């Protein structure tokens, strides 16, 4: 054997020289990785963070396309892994129909006030607040009139047939406030479900189309009522409080107030019906909002022009606002400004609501679960 050759025993001898001869001693403390880079998560080097996990699973963020999806493989989980996918059963009880319906209503109404529910756009929330405060302004004016004791101001701002009618059906409110408010609230209520496919979330669960439509309708009507009806009632209540009125005042004014209340509710119902019908035939919130205001203003302008040119006001029957105004005038005992009977306006309102609800129901029936 030449000097260049070696045997296995020689090699082992060399190793034994290098290795410590004594028994290896245990360290006093557990070994700590030298740096965070030595930590390992499912075969991937680096610190174990939520971001790392998601990048591994879905390739999002900065590490897009570099992650390795191994997080779900429970069979290969090793020591040090903090994410272990375990299916936990749920043993609770499911509530009846009214609880499901309540959750739909709450989802839409609470969304205006808190997070975690329907995400209303900030513009809608702002308009609701501004219109609400604007419609409560007469209360402040009335309070000022009471405090100053000026009789003329009381006549202008106090409770009267005309003021109660005007609070709900005044031209300014029905041009700049209620239509805009309704358009923003109702516009995307159903159309966005169609647009985003969220109808599948409802109908693949024990929610019937009747429940869905009814709860959407009540939600929209409730939000509109919170502004229109609430401000109307607050105005009347404030008049009693500020003027320290008694039963006689109540008996005198209650019929007008109730007449106005009924018309306010009719306005909310009619606007909601028309708005939701338009929302149900669309796949976005812009078209229903614009077309709602188009129907409202267009019919008024058309009827006004025809009346101006031909002195025929029958076309006002096509205008939802004018029908409401006419019925309101009749119910509150104000001289009507229309030449045809108030019953015609009432029937026209019923027809408008009927047609709108028919469109709404038939369009909701066409909402798909499996494909839209």
């Amino acid at each position: 054997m030449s000097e260049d050759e070696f045997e296995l025993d020689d090699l082992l001898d060399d190793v034994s020289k290098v290795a410590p001869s004594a028994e290896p001693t245990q360290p006093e403390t557990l070994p700590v990785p030298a740096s965070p880079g030595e930590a390992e998560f499912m075969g991937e080097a680096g610190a174990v963070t939520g971001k790392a996990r998601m990048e591994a699973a879905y390739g999002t963020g900065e590490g897009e396309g570099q992650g390795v999806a191994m997080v779900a493989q429970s069979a290969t989980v090793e020591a040090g892994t903090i994410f272990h996918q375990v299916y936990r059963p749920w043993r609770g009880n499911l509530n009846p129909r009214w609880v499901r319906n309540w959750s739909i209503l709450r989802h839409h109404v609470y969304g205006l006030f808190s997070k975690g529910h329907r995400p209303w756009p900030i513009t809608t929330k702002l308009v609701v607040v501004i219109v609400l405060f604007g419609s409560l302004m007469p209360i402040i004016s009335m309070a000022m009139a009471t405090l100053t004791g000026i009789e003329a101001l009381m006549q202008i701002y106090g409770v009267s047939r005309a003021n109660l009618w005007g609070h709900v059906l005044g031209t300014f409110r029905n041009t700049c406030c209620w239509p805009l408010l309704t358009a923003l609230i109702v516009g995307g209520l159903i159309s966005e479900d169609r647009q985003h496919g969220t109808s599948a979330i409802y109908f693949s669960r024990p929610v019937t189309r009747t429940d869905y439509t009814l709860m959407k309708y009540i939600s929209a009507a409730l939000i509109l009522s919170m502004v229109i009806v609430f401000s109307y009632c607050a105005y009347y209540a404030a008049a009693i409080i500020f003027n320290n009125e008694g039963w006689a005042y109540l008996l005198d004014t209650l019929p007008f107030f109730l007449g106005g209340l009924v018309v306010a509710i009719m306005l909310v119902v009619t606007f909601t019906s028309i708005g939701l019908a338009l929302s149900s035939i669309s796949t976005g919130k812009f078209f229903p909002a614009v077309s709602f205001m188009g129907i409202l203003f267009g019919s008024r302008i058309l009827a006004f022009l025809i009346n101006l040119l031909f002195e025929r006001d029958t076309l006002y029957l096509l205008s939802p606002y004018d029908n409401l105004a006419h019925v309101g005038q009749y119910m509150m005992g104000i001289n009507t400004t229309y030449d045809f009977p108030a019953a015609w306006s009432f029937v026209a309102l019923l027809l408008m609501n009927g047609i709108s609800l028919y469109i709404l129901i038939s369009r909701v029936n066409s909402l798909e679960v499996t494909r839209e």
Partner: protein
Amino acid sequence: MTEEWIVETHDLVKKYGEHLALDSVNLAIRPGATGLLGPNGAGKSTLLKTILGLIALTSGGGKVLGHDIATEGAKIRQRIGYMPEYDCLTPDMEAIHQVRYAGELVGMNSNSAIQRAHEVLEYVGLRDQRYRTVSTFSTGMEQATKLACALIHDPDLLICDEPTNGLDANARGFMLDTLFQVVKQGGRSIIMSSHLMDDVERICDRMLMIHKGQVIAQGRIEDLKAIDREIEISVWGGASRIEEKLKDMGQSVRRTGRVMRITRIDDSTYGTIIKAAAETSVQIRKMEDYEPSLEDLFIVIMDRLGYSVKSSKDLLGGNTPAMDHAAQLGRKVA
């Protein structure tokens, strides 16, 4: 869950006007994972809606989880978790509240729903992302959120419509692993509609194939594969000769270059192949039983129905010209 059958139908017929969407469908699906296959327009969506108790049937009937399809739709949907193929999430909502709301719509009270939403979002891998709005999610995270919505009330049956649609390989693997665990670890049943044979084969032990509104195959995938066992051989020196010889000897041969698959009739087929090789002086370098995939099974089934289909990609595009031609000739489908 103690039902022997999770879905059971008899002579189910659904017509949309003159169009026959479901034609005398008789199903018997056992608990476990079942794949639902079929070309576009085959009737998969109608079948899923039927299982969910959402549509009025023209005739026939059935039960899902022991509830009548025609009259107990709400009860069925309380016990089913449905994961749609398409978008179904509100973009501006946070995932946790989206899932919570999905639970409330089933009837869970608010406290239980939010607690469970945390659990299922962790389960689907979105624990650290649960307070992000859905609009900021990738496709994989959206799919995971949809799965969480379906799982929140711990359903007995999970219906997944194309659960891996639009996912990359990593997210797809994660989704399939998660679904697999729902079945194996959670003991739940899944009906998974997919056009990806690999996905179905990975998750499901049973399959259901429909075409033109009719069930053309159903049962355990392993059993269905057995309808067409083949022997695969690699030959050297005269592939054409041995192919011709085997055909002359009455064997069915599929050939790609030097690799051939011969339909296995019985044990004597091996001897026949060796005899053919000896007579044609051809070397057989490898001979083994071929393990067919679901893809092969699909091709064989369509072949037996008289359709010339090359791959399962035809599932995506609906009927191929050959299929349409065959249909025009009035071939019986099932």
